[in-house]
């Protein structure tokens, strides 16, 4: 678990998770609705900077988390570049056609992905699930049954992983030959899924019974007291201002120092 542990506490850790969630949902919406390539690139750059400064993780961990998103960047943008529609053809070879429009759109798509990743990681790396659900229960009146079932299921994940490792060893001992091809892959998934699911369902049932035995009433949270109080603080205001400023900065940079200056990249 140490890989998820924070290395230092930042403003973002102190902010209320509900506020953080709301702000980041707004940022997500903004990124989705952006069609200007310059704005998206600046968003990607600025939120990545925010991530590095505010997530409280060591650099190598950030790079590790960012790795899948870099792969997504390459795959999504290159697909769009090679197969997207466009009129100004730069290069053509069989099915592959790189046009000016598709090239920019590919780049746009890739950077959009990076911007999403940075925003998402900003939230995920600075919020513990327990804090989030306590916040949601107290501030947004989420029914405790949802909150606690999520928290309980997160606790069960490492056990599933452990069992996965044992299953792998067991298959090796039984002498299961490596299965090749798509069929082999499907068969292999089944060989892991059935026993792991069977164990997990039983385990989940036992946890549920134990929670009920501890007098848990999941239907309504009225009168429920909370061990962690979810409070708003000055950090919430700081975070709102900071992230709004970041978005505004991206917008202004895009209009003052555009890299491409081609405006809307959509194909019409």
């Amino acid at each position, binding site marked *: *678990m140490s890989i998820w542990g924070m290395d230092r506490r930042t403003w973002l850790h102190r902010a209320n998770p509900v506020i953080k969630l709301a702000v980041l949902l707004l940022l997500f919406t903004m990124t989705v609705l952006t069609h200007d390539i310059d704005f998206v690139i600046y968003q990607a750059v600025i939120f990545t900077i925010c991530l590095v400064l505010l997530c409280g993780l060591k650099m190598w961990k950030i790079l590790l988390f960012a790795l899948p998103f870099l792969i997504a960047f390459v795959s999504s943008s290159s697909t769009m570049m090679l197969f997207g529609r466009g009129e100004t053809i730069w290069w053509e070879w069989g099915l592959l056609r790189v046009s000016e429009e598709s090239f920019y759109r590919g780049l746009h798509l890739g950077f959009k992905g990076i911007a999403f990743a940075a925003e998402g990681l900003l939230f995920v790396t600075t919020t513990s699930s*327990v804090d989030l659900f306590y916040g949601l229960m107290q501030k947004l009146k989420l029914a405790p049954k949802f909150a*606690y079932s999520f*928290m*309980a299921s*997160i*606790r069960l994940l*490492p*056990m599933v992983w452990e*069992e996965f490792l*044992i*299953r792998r*060893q*067991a*298959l*090796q*001992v*039984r*002498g*299961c*030959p490596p299965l090749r091809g798509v069929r082999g892959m499907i068969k292999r998934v089944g*060989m892991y899924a059935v*026993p792991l699911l*069977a*164990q997990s369902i039983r*385990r989940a049932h*036992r*946890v*549920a*019974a*134990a*929670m*009920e*035995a*501890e*007098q*848990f*009433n999941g239907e309504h949270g009225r*009168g*429920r*007291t*909370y*061990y*962690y*109080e979810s409070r708003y603080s000055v950090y919430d205001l700081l975070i709102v201002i900071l992230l709004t400023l970041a978005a505004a900065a991206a917008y202004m940079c895009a209009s003052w120092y555009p890299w491409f200056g081609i405006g809307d990249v959509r194909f019409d």
Partner: protein
Amino acid sequence: MADLLLLQADDAEELAGAGEADSEAGQSGPRPSVSVQDLRLKFPGDTPMLFRDLSFQASAGEKVLLLGPSGCGKSTLLQVLSGMIPRVIEIPMKCSEQIIPASWAYVFQDPDTQFCMPFVDEELAFVLENLQVARDDMAGRMKDALDAVGLQLPELHTPISSLSQGMKQRLALASALLLEPEVLFLDEPSALLDPEGRKQIWEAVRSVSADRTLVIVEHRIEEILHDVNRVILFGPDGEIVGEGRPEEVFIKYRKELQQYGIWHPGVWEDYRAAASERSAVSRGFSSVSEGPAVGVNPGAGESPVLALSQFQVLRKQRPVVTVEEASLYPGDFTAVIGHNGAGKSSLLLGLMGLLPCTGDYRLGGEPVVFGKKRRERKMREHALRRIGFVFQNPELQFVSETVLDEVLYSLVVDGRSQEEAIQEAHECLAHFGLSGMEGRHPYQLSMGQKRRLSVATAMVRKPEVLLLDEPTFGQDARNTFGILELCQELVQAGTAILMVTHEMDIAQQVAREIWEIGEGRLLSRRKPEVDR
């Protein structure tokens, strides 16, 4: 709920006797704090009725132990008594009268599935939140509960995953205490613990049980026997066979206890008597009572089937367990003991080629080469065919849809022809008492059958060495002795067995040599102390 159950009127008459005996016994206390009268309960499906007109009551402050063979419904009865059935777990049931205690708490068997939060304080807080305790009072009550069960932690905010299994069970007991229960239901709380943890959980239970009613289901009973007032013995069909003070029950019903395979104070003596009788009759010599039978004397020019010298098992490039010198001869039965995390399982995984190792490791004279090259891997795989391995949880090692295919698989992987393999598989299943189950799904077998099948899949290839990882863990006496008998048979046929176990009893009673592992190495190899 009750209407779901349709019964025939004459069902009630059959067990009328049991009901009467009960109500007499129940009159000992002033006021029952928990009771149920004429309970009938049936699981959905074609299964027979679990309880027919069962009555149970416990008076305030009484400590009652429920004993019975696996599957007789003891745990189900606890859930009925607490009202969990049918309120939470929807199973059709019916009774003429029931008193559900005003306040009760429950401790379950599995230490890993009783908690919904990641940290100790959060878990305890979950209970306090449910009770609507004010936030300021929480920390104090948590400390009191942890003190009561003797769980000293450096701080409240400790990850539950860093606790040992025994500590987890005491934490479960602490959260049960927060409910300030009048009645405490304990559903095999020590079944999945090592001896150390078992001792501690029962000490904790003892210290908190003063004026509480306790209803306990447990199959390992040495630790609690002296603290219970009444023992109730269930038969395999969910009926009450007898009850009374512990010392009376264990004398009066010894035959039944033996027959149902329930742990009781004389269980090992009975086992030994039965074992020597059996082998005397069937083979003309006794393996258990007269000591070494076959192959145990290595002097006679016999070569070891497994030999280790300066052998190290590595995890993350660091040695986790070191064996300077050790060997197994055909027909050896060796128990590997040691504390949790001492490296017992790592040793087994290393021997099985599942963890990287260094040093000298020979199987039947053939060296096992380590290394990742293709040729080395092939050679290693060839050498390792001499070993069979049985995992702790049988379900995780099943690969087929039917019992027959499960055994066939091992043979086919070994390169046997189909017809030959089918023949052998049938013989093997018959030998392990699984005839008639060929078409069943492995998951549909009972606990004991699953275990036998897992041993069968390893043994059908006729390995010279069998490694077992805690095969008796969490099993009742019947299954435990079933496994041990199986091992004895294999040993007599010349297989060398290396078995990791937590149970000193098993190590002392049935093994011929004990390897003790601690501080990351094989500390000692010795003969069991019990004179047989």
